Protein backbone atom coordinates (compact mmCIF):
# COMPACT_ATOMS: atom_id res chain seq x y z
CA UNK A 1 0.00 0.00 0.00
CA UNK A 2 2.79 2.36 1.04
CA UNK A 3 4.83 1.49 -2.02
CA UNK A 4 1.84 2.19 -4.29
CA UNK A 5 1.35 5.55 -2.69
CA UNK A 6 5.03 6.39 -2.94
CA UNK A 7 5.07 5.39 -6.60
CA UNK A 8 2.07 7.55 -7.39
CA UNK A 9 3.70 10.52 -5.65
CA UNK A 10 6.92 9.97 -7.63
CA UNK A 11 4.89 9.71 -10.84
CA UNK A 12 3.07 12.90 -10.02
CA UNK A 13 6.31 14.72 -9.40
CA UNK A 14 7.93 13.46 -12.56
CA UNK A 15 4.95 13.97 -14.86
CA UNK A 16 5.29 17.77 -15.22
CA UNK A 17 8.69 17.27 -16.82
CA UNK A 18 7.10 15.30 -19.62
CA UNK A 19 3.89 17.25 -19.99
CA UNK A 20 5.40 19.23 -22.89
CA UNK A 21 4.88 16.68 -25.63
CA UNK A 22 5.32 18.98 -28.64
CA UNK A 23 8.91 19.99 -29.18
CA UNK A 24 8.40 23.53 -30.54
CA UNK A 25 11.26 25.61 -31.87
CA UNK A 26 10.10 29.12 -31.05
CA UNK A 27 13.04 30.60 -32.89
CA UNK A 28 12.37 28.94 -36.22
CA UNK A 29 11.75 31.50 -39.02
CA UNK A 30 8.17 30.29 -39.49
CA UNK A 31 7.37 30.76 -35.80
CA UNK A 32 9.11 34.14 -35.61
CA UNK A 33 7.04 35.19 -38.61
CA UNK A 34 3.83 33.97 -36.96
CA UNK A 35 4.69 35.82 -33.75
CA UNK A 36 5.71 38.99 -35.62
CA UNK A 37 2.48 38.94 -37.65
CA UNK A 38 0.52 38.46 -34.45
CA UNK A 39 2.28 41.48 -32.87
CA UNK A 40 1.71 43.54 -36.01
CA UNK A 41 -2.01 42.75 -36.01
CA UNK A 42 -2.19 43.53 -32.29
CA UNK A 43 -0.68 46.93 -33.18
CA UNK A 44 2.37 46.21 -31.05
CA UNK A 45 4.48 47.70 -33.81
CA UNK A 46 7.70 48.24 -31.90
CA UNK A 47 8.03 44.58 -30.96
CA UNK A 48 6.74 43.49 -34.38
CA UNK A 49 9.63 45.42 -35.98
CA UNK A 50 12.10 43.67 -33.67
CA UNK A 51 10.80 40.27 -34.77
CA UNK A 52 10.64 41.22 -38.45
CA UNK A 53 14.21 42.51 -38.21
CA UNK A 54 15.33 39.13 -36.86
CA UNK A 55 13.85 37.56 -39.98
CA UNK A 56 15.32 40.22 -42.26
CA UNK A 57 18.75 39.46 -40.83
CA UNK A 58 18.27 35.86 -41.96
CA UNK A 59 16.83 36.68 -45.37
CA UNK A 60 15.78 39.84 -47.21
CA UNK A 61 12.05 39.95 -47.81
CA UNK A 62 10.26 42.89 -49.42
CA UNK A 63 6.91 42.15 -47.69
CA UNK A 64 8.59 42.28 -44.30
CA UNK A 65 10.46 45.45 -45.25
CA UNK A 66 7.18 46.99 -46.31
CA UNK A 67 5.51 45.95 -43.06
CA UNK A 68 8.35 47.38 -40.96
CA UNK A 69 8.00 50.62 -42.93
CA UNK A 70 4.28 50.69 -42.22
CA UNK A 71 4.97 49.89 -38.55
CA UNK A 72 7.35 52.83 -38.23
CA UNK A 73 4.81 55.02 -39.98
CA UNK A 74 2.06 53.96 -37.53
CA UNK A 75 4.46 54.82 -34.70
CA UNK A 76 4.98 58.33 -36.16
CA UNK A 77 8.67 57.58 -36.74
CA UNK A 78 8.56 58.93 -40.28
CA UNK A 79 12.33 59.14 -41.01
CA UNK A 80 12.73 55.43 -40.16
CA UNK A 81 9.61 54.60 -42.19
CA UNK A 82 10.96 56.45 -45.23
CA UNK A 83 14.29 54.66 -44.81
CA UNK A 84 12.56 51.26 -44.87
CA UNK A 85 10.41 52.08 -47.90
CA UNK A 86 13.56 53.30 -49.62
CA UNK A 87 15.11 49.82 -49.24
CA UNK A 88 12.40 48.03 -51.19
CA UNK A 89 13.91 46.83 -54.50
CA UNK A 90 12.41 48.01 -57.83
CA UNK A 91 11.54 44.40 -58.74
CA UNK A 92 9.21 44.08 -55.72
CA UNK A 93 5.43 43.99 -56.26
CA UNK A 94 5.29 46.54 -53.45
CA UNK A 95 7.45 49.09 -55.24
CA UNK A 96 4.66 51.49 -56.26
CA UNK A 97 2.88 51.29 -52.90
CA UNK A 98 6.17 51.74 -51.06
CA UNK A 99 7.01 54.82 -53.11
CA UNK A 100 3.73 56.51 -52.23
CA UNK A 101 4.18 55.44 -48.59
CA UNK A 102 7.69 56.87 -48.73
CA UNK A 103 6.25 60.14 -50.02
CA UNK A 104 3.58 60.06 -47.33
CA UNK A 105 6.27 59.58 -44.65
CA UNK A 106 8.18 62.58 -46.02
CA UNK A 107 4.96 64.61 -46.01
CA UNK A 108 4.00 63.62 -42.47
CA UNK A 109 7.47 64.44 -41.18
CA UNK A 110 6.49 68.05 -41.89
CA UNK A 111 9.63 69.19 -43.71
CA UNK A 112 7.68 70.43 -46.71
CA UNK A 113 10.57 71.89 -48.76
CA UNK A 114 12.33 68.49 -48.60
CA UNK A 115 9.05 66.71 -49.31
CA UNK A 116 8.52 68.83 -52.43
CA UNK A 117 12.04 68.17 -53.61
CA UNK A 118 11.51 64.43 -53.06
CA UNK A 119 8.29 64.52 -55.08
CA UNK A 120 9.90 66.45 -57.94
CA UNK A 121 12.89 64.07 -58.05
CA UNK A 122 10.93 60.84 -57.75
CA UNK A 123 7.48 61.34 -59.26
CA UNK A 124 7.44 64.17 -61.80
CA UNK A 125 7.48 62.92 -65.39
CA UNK A 126 5.57 59.73 -64.68
CA UNK A 127 2.02 59.23 -65.77
CA UNK A 128 0.34 56.72 -63.53
CA UNK A 129 -2.04 56.47 -60.58
CA UNK A 130 0.72 56.90 -58.00
CA UNK A 131 2.07 60.03 -59.66
CA UNK A 132 -1.42 61.50 -59.52
CA UNK A 133 -1.81 60.58 -55.81
CA UNK A 134 1.63 62.02 -55.14
CA UNK A 135 0.64 65.26 -56.83
CA UNK A 136 -2.42 65.53 -54.61
CA UNK A 137 -0.15 65.38 -51.56
CA UNK A 138 2.24 67.81 -53.25
CA UNK A 139 -0.59 70.31 -53.74
CA UNK A 140 -1.78 69.85 -50.16
CA UNK A 141 1.68 70.76 -48.91
CA UNK A 142 1.07 74.31 -50.21
CA UNK A 143 -1.77 74.65 -47.71
CA UNK A 144 0.57 73.95 -44.78
CA UNK A 145 3.15 76.55 -45.75
CA UNK A 146 3.21 80.25 -46.60
CA UNK A 147 4.47 79.67 -50.12
CA UNK A 148 2.62 81.37 -52.98
CA UNK A 149 -0.22 79.16 -54.18
CA UNK A 150 -0.55 78.01 -57.79
CA UNK A 151 -3.71 79.03 -59.67
CA UNK A 152 -6.91 77.38 -58.45
CA UNK A 153 -7.33 75.45 -61.68
CA UNK A 154 -3.80 74.10 -61.49
CA UNK A 155 -4.22 73.31 -57.80
CA UNK A 156 -7.43 71.34 -58.29
CA UNK A 157 -6.34 69.53 -61.46
CA UNK A 158 -5.13 66.22 -59.86
CA UNK A 159 -8.26 65.81 -57.71
CA UNK A 160 -11.34 63.77 -58.60
CA UNK A 161 -14.66 65.51 -59.21
CA UNK A 162 -16.10 64.39 -55.86
CA UNK A 163 -13.05 65.79 -54.03
CA UNK A 164 -12.92 69.11 -55.79
CA UNK A 165 -15.61 70.87 -53.76
CA UNK A 166 -13.91 70.20 -50.43
CA UNK A 167 -10.39 70.84 -51.69
CA UNK A 168 -11.62 74.02 -53.34
CA UNK A 169 -12.95 75.25 -49.97
CA UNK A 170 -9.50 74.59 -48.45
CA UNK A 171 -7.91 76.57 -51.26
CA UNK A 172 -10.32 79.48 -50.78
CA UNK A 173 -9.63 79.49 -47.06
CA UNK A 174 -5.90 79.64 -47.68
CA UNK A 175 -6.30 82.52 -50.14
CA UNK A 176 -8.56 84.49 -47.83
CA UNK A 177 -8.41 83.18 -44.25
CA UNK A 178 -11.03 84.60 -41.84
CA UNK A 179 -8.40 86.39 -39.76
CA UNK A 180 -9.20 89.45 -37.67
CA UNK A 181 -7.05 92.57 -37.84
CA UNK A 182 -5.27 93.30 -34.57
CA UNK A 183 -5.05 96.99 -35.56
CA UNK A 184 -8.81 97.23 -36.09
CA UNK A 185 -9.41 95.43 -32.77
CA UNK A 186 -7.12 97.87 -30.95
CA UNK A 187 -8.71 100.96 -32.56
CA UNK A 188 -12.22 99.72 -31.84
CA UNK A 189 -11.40 99.16 -28.17
CA UNK A 190 -9.82 102.60 -28.00
CA UNK A 191 -13.10 104.12 -29.25
CA UNK A 192 -15.53 101.93 -27.29
CA UNK A 193 -13.91 99.80 -24.57
CA UNK A 194 -14.57 96.11 -25.21
CA UNK A 195 -15.73 96.52 -28.80
CA UNK A 196 -12.40 95.17 -30.12
CA UNK A 197 -12.95 91.99 -28.14
CA UNK A 198 -16.48 91.70 -29.54
CA UNK A 199 -14.99 92.17 -33.04
CA UNK A 200 -12.65 89.18 -32.55
CA UNK A 201 -15.49 87.04 -31.22
CA UNK A 202 -14.85 87.39 -27.47
CA UNK A 203 -18.28 88.88 -26.80
CA UNK A 204 -18.52 88.25 -23.06
CA UNK A 205 -14.94 89.50 -22.51
CA UNK A 206 -15.89 92.65 -24.44
CA UNK A 207 -19.02 93.25 -22.35
CA UNK A 208 -17.08 92.73 -19.10
CA UNK A 209 -14.32 95.09 -20.26
CA UNK A 210 -16.92 97.74 -21.16
CA UNK A 211 -18.66 97.41 -17.79
CA UNK A 212 -15.46 97.45 -15.71
CA UNK A 213 -14.00 100.45 -17.53
CA UNK A 214 -17.39 102.19 -17.47
CA UNK A 215 -17.83 101.65 -13.73
CA UNK A 216 -14.40 103.12 -12.92
CA UNK A 217 -14.97 106.08 -15.26
CA UNK A 218 -18.31 106.74 -13.60
CA UNK A 219 -16.78 106.45 -10.11
CA UNK A 220 -13.99 108.84 -11.09
CA UNK A 221 -16.45 111.32 -12.60
CA UNK A 222 -18.82 111.07 -9.65
CA UNK A 223 -16.03 111.60 -7.11
CA UNK A 224 -14.67 114.60 -9.02
CA UNK A 225 -18.22 116.02 -9.03
CA UNK A 226 -18.49 115.41 -5.28
CA UNK A 227 -15.11 117.02 -4.66
CA UNK A 228 -13.40 113.82 -3.40
CA UNK A 229 -10.29 114.47 -5.42
CA UNK A 230 -8.03 111.73 -3.98
CA UNK A 231 -10.58 109.00 -4.49
CA UNK A 232 -11.42 110.44 -7.89
CA UNK A 233 -7.77 110.20 -9.01
CA UNK A 234 -7.48 106.63 -7.71
CA UNK A 235 -10.54 105.67 -9.77
CA UNK A 236 -9.19 107.58 -12.74
CA UNK A 237 -5.95 105.58 -12.52
CA UNK A 238 -7.86 102.31 -12.29
CA UNK A 239 -10.07 103.30 -15.24
CA UNK A 240 -7.00 104.24 -17.30
CA UNK A 241 -5.29 100.93 -16.53
CA UNK A 242 -8.38 98.89 -17.39
CA UNK A 243 -8.88 100.98 -20.54
CA UNK A 244 -5.24 100.52 -21.63
CA UNK A 245 -5.28 96.85 -20.68
CA UNK A 246 -8.40 96.34 -22.76
CA UNK A 247 -6.86 97.94 -25.86
CA UNK A 248 -3.77 95.80 -25.40
CA UNK A 249 -5.92 92.74 -24.74
CA UNK A 250 -7.97 93.30 -27.89
CA UNK A 251 -4.82 93.37 -30.01
CA UNK A 252 -3.57 90.20 -28.29
CA UNK A 253 -7.02 88.56 -28.61
CA UNK A 254 -6.96 89.18 -32.39
CA UNK A 255 -3.56 87.44 -32.60
CA UNK A 256 -4.81 84.51 -30.51
CA UNK A 257 -7.95 84.35 -32.67
CA UNK A 258 -5.81 84.16 -35.81
CA UNK A 259 -3.65 81.44 -34.26
CA UNK A 260 -6.84 79.55 -33.42
CA UNK A 261 -8.11 79.88 -37.00
CA UNK A 262 -4.81 78.57 -38.38
CA UNK A 263 -4.83 75.71 -35.88
CA UNK A 264 -8.38 74.73 -36.82
CA UNK A 265 -7.59 74.95 -40.53
CA UNK A 266 -4.56 72.68 -40.13
CA UNK A 267 -6.64 70.31 -38.04
CA UNK A 268 -9.36 70.09 -40.69
CA UNK A 269 -6.69 69.49 -43.36
CA UNK A 270 -5.16 66.72 -41.27
CA UNK A 271 -8.56 65.13 -40.64
CA UNK A 272 -9.39 65.23 -44.35
CA UNK A 273 -6.02 63.78 -45.34
CA UNK A 274 -6.20 61.10 -42.66
CA UNK A 275 -9.65 60.12 -43.88
CA UNK A 276 -8.17 59.69 -47.35
CA UNK A 277 -5.15 57.86 -45.90
CA UNK A 278 -2.87 60.58 -47.33
CA UNK A 279 -3.64 59.21 -50.80
CA UNK A 280 -1.71 56.04 -50.11
CA UNK A 281 -3.23 52.57 -50.66
CA UNK A 282 -4.86 51.05 -47.58
CA UNK A 283 -3.61 47.55 -46.79
CA UNK A 284 -4.98 45.12 -44.34
CA UNK A 285 -2.38 42.47 -43.67
CA UNK A 286 -4.46 41.17 -40.76
CA UNK A 287 -7.50 39.82 -42.61
Amino acid at each position, binding site marked *: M*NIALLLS*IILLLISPHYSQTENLDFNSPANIRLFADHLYCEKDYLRAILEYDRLLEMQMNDTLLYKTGLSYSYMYDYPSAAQRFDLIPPSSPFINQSRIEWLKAKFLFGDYPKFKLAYVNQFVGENNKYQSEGQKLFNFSYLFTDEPLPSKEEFLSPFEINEKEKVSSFYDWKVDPPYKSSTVAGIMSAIIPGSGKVYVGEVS*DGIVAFL*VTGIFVFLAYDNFQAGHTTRAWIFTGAAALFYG*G*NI*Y*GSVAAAQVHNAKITFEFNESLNIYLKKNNYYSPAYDFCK
Partner: protein
Amino acid sequence: MIRRIKILTLLFPLFPLSIYSQTDWVKWEKTNFDYRKSSEYRQRDYSYDNDTTAAQYVVKTTANAYWYFVSDLDGDNCPFRPSCSAFFVESSKQTNIFQGTLMFFDRFTRDINIYKRHKHYPHIKDGYLYDPVSLYTLDESKINYIPPSAIIEQQ
Protein backbone atom coordinates in the same frame (compact mmCIF):
# COMPACT_ATOMS: atom_id res chain seq x y z
CA MET B 1 2.51 7.03 8.06
CA ILE B 2 0.03 7.54 5.23
CA ARG B 3 -1.18 10.66 6.93
CA ARG B 4 2.38 12.02 7.04
CA ILE B 5 2.91 11.25 3.37
CA LYS B 6 -0.37 12.94 2.53
CA ILE B 7 0.69 16.05 4.39
CA LEU B 8 4.12 15.95 2.75
CA THR B 9 2.50 15.51 -0.68
CA LEU B 10 0.38 18.54 -0.08
CA LEU B 11 3.22 20.58 1.31
CA PHE B 12 5.81 19.68 -1.31
CA PRO B 13 4.43 21.86 -4.16
CA LEU B 14 4.27 24.78 -1.77
CA PHE B 15 8.04 25.09 -1.45
CA PRO B 16 8.84 25.77 -5.10
CA LEU B 17 5.84 28.09 -5.24
CA SER B 18 7.14 30.15 -2.36
CA ILE B 19 10.55 30.37 -4.01
CA TYR B 20 9.27 31.65 -7.35
CA SER B 21 6.44 33.85 -6.12
CA GLN B 22 8.84 36.50 -4.86
CA THR B 23 9.48 38.69 -7.88
CA ASP B 24 10.90 41.77 -6.22
CA TRP B 25 13.55 41.70 -3.53
CA VAL B 26 13.13 45.13 -2.02
CA LYS B 27 11.80 45.05 1.48
CA TRP B 28 8.21 46.21 1.68
CA GLU B 29 7.72 48.93 4.18
CA LYS B 30 5.48 51.75 5.14
CA THR B 31 5.44 54.70 2.73
CA ASN B 32 4.48 58.21 3.59
CA PHE B 33 2.04 58.97 0.81
CA ASP B 34 0.81 62.52 0.48
CA TYR B 35 -2.75 62.69 -0.85
CA ARG B 36 -2.77 66.48 -1.08
CA LYS B 37 -2.81 68.03 -4.54
CA SER B 38 0.43 69.76 -5.42
CA SER B 39 -0.30 73.41 -5.93
CA GLU B 40 1.54 76.49 -7.05
CA TYR B 41 -0.17 78.23 -4.13
CA ARG B 42 1.75 76.06 -1.66
CA GLN B 43 5.06 76.38 -3.49
CA ARG B 44 5.29 80.13 -3.91
CA ASP B 45 8.65 81.51 -4.70
CA TYR B 46 9.17 84.65 -2.65
CA SER B 47 12.84 84.94 -3.56
CA TYR B 48 14.36 87.63 -5.75
CA ASP B 49 16.92 85.25 -7.28
CA ASN B 50 15.75 85.67 -10.87
CA ASP B 51 14.98 89.38 -10.67
CA THR B 52 17.73 91.49 -12.14
CA THR B 53 16.22 94.89 -12.88
CA ALA B 54 14.69 97.52 -10.59
CA ALA B 55 11.33 97.10 -12.36
CA GLN B 56 11.38 93.38 -11.65
CA TYR B 57 12.09 94.11 -7.97
CA VAL B 58 9.09 96.46 -7.86
CA VAL B 59 6.80 93.90 -9.52
CA LYS B 60 8.04 91.02 -7.36
CA THR B 61 7.69 93.10 -4.18
CA THR B 62 4.10 93.96 -5.14
CA ALA B 63 3.33 90.30 -5.83
CA ASN B 64 5.08 89.13 -2.63
CA ALA B 65 3.12 91.67 -0.57
CA TYR B 66 -0.13 90.53 -2.18
CA TRP B 67 0.71 86.87 -1.57
CA TYR B 68 1.81 87.43 2.03
CA PHE B 69 -0.92 89.81 3.19
CA VAL B 70 -3.88 88.74 1.05
CA SER B 71 -3.67 85.60 -1.03
CA ASP B 72 -2.04 83.23 1.49
CA LEU B 73 -4.74 84.15 4.01
CA ASP B 74 -7.60 84.27 1.54
CA GLY B 75 -6.80 80.95 -0.17
CA ASP B 76 -6.14 79.71 -3.66
CA ASN B 77 -9.06 81.32 -5.49
CA CYS B 78 -7.71 82.19 -8.93
CA PRO B 79 -9.13 79.76 -11.51
CA PHE B 80 -6.20 80.34 -13.86
CA ARG B 81 -2.70 78.98 -14.05
CA PRO B 82 -0.48 80.87 -13.82
CA SER B 83 -2.54 82.77 -11.26
CA CYS B 84 -3.13 86.47 -11.98
CA SER B 85 -0.35 87.59 -9.62
CA ALA B 86 2.09 85.03 -11.03
CA PHE B 87 0.97 86.14 -14.53
CA PHE B 88 1.89 89.73 -13.62
CA VAL B 89 5.37 88.70 -12.44
CA GLU B 90 5.94 86.46 -15.46
CA SER B 91 4.61 88.95 -18.02
CA SER B 92 6.75 91.74 -16.61
CA LYS B 93 9.75 89.46 -16.77
CA GLN B 94 9.07 88.41 -20.37
CA THR B 95 8.31 91.94 -21.62
CA ASN B 96 8.68 95.04 -19.42
CA ILE B 97 6.85 96.57 -16.48
CA PHE B 98 4.53 98.72 -18.64
CA GLN B 99 3.52 95.96 -21.02
CA GLY B 100 3.35 93.53 -18.10
CA THR B 101 0.95 95.86 -16.28
CA LEU B 102 -1.31 96.12 -19.34
CA MET B 103 -1.21 92.34 -19.72
CA PHE B 104 -2.13 91.95 -16.08
CA PHE B 105 -5.15 94.29 -16.37
CA ASP B 106 -6.31 92.46 -19.49
CA ARG B 107 -5.94 89.13 -17.66
CA PHE B 108 -7.79 90.53 -14.65
CA THR B 109 -10.68 91.63 -16.90
CA ARG B 110 -10.83 88.13 -18.39
CA ASP B 111 -10.73 86.70 -14.88
CA ILE B 112 -13.79 88.75 -13.92
CA ASN B 113 -15.69 87.26 -16.88
CA ILE B 114 -17.26 84.13 -15.42
CA TYR B 115 -18.98 83.09 -18.67
CA LYS B 116 -17.60 80.50 -21.13
CA ARG B 117 -14.40 80.04 -19.14
CA HIS B 118 -14.50 76.27 -19.40
CA LYS B 119 -15.24 76.36 -23.11
CA HIS B 120 -12.53 78.88 -23.82
CA TYR B 121 -9.39 77.72 -22.02
CA PRO B 122 -7.67 74.35 -21.88
CA HIS B 123 -7.51 72.71 -18.48
CA ILE B 124 -4.54 71.66 -16.44
CA LYS B 125 -4.83 68.13 -15.05
CA ASP B 126 -5.77 69.39 -11.57
CA GLY B 127 -8.69 71.42 -12.96
CA TYR B 128 -7.29 74.92 -13.33
CA LEU B 129 -7.60 76.86 -16.57
CA TYR B 130 -4.40 77.19 -18.56
CA ASP B 131 -3.71 80.70 -19.80
CA PRO B 132 0.02 81.21 -20.37
CA VAL B 133 1.81 84.55 -20.75
CA SER B 134 3.24 83.53 -24.13
CA LEU B 135 -0.16 84.01 -25.80
CA TYR B 136 -0.29 87.71 -24.97
CA THR B 137 3.21 89.12 -25.51
CA LEU B 138 2.21 90.31 -29.02
CA ASP B 139 5.02 88.15 -30.42
CA GLU B 140 3.16 85.90 -32.87
CA SER B 141 6.02 83.42 -33.03
CA LYS B 142 5.52 82.65 -29.33
CA ILE B 143 1.81 81.88 -29.67
CA ASN B 144 1.25 78.16 -29.32
CA TYR B 145 -2.51 77.77 -29.54
CA ILE B 146 -3.89 74.92 -27.46
CA PRO B 147 -7.57 74.01 -28.02
CA PRO B 148 -9.91 74.14 -24.98
CA SER B 149 -10.51 70.40 -25.25
CA ALA B 150 -6.86 69.70 -24.41
CA ILE B 151 -5.71 68.65 -20.96
CA ILE B 152 -2.34 70.03 -19.97
CA GLU B 153 -0.18 67.54 -18.09
CA GLN B 154 2.10 70.06 -16.38
CA GLN B 155 2.17 73.79 -16.00
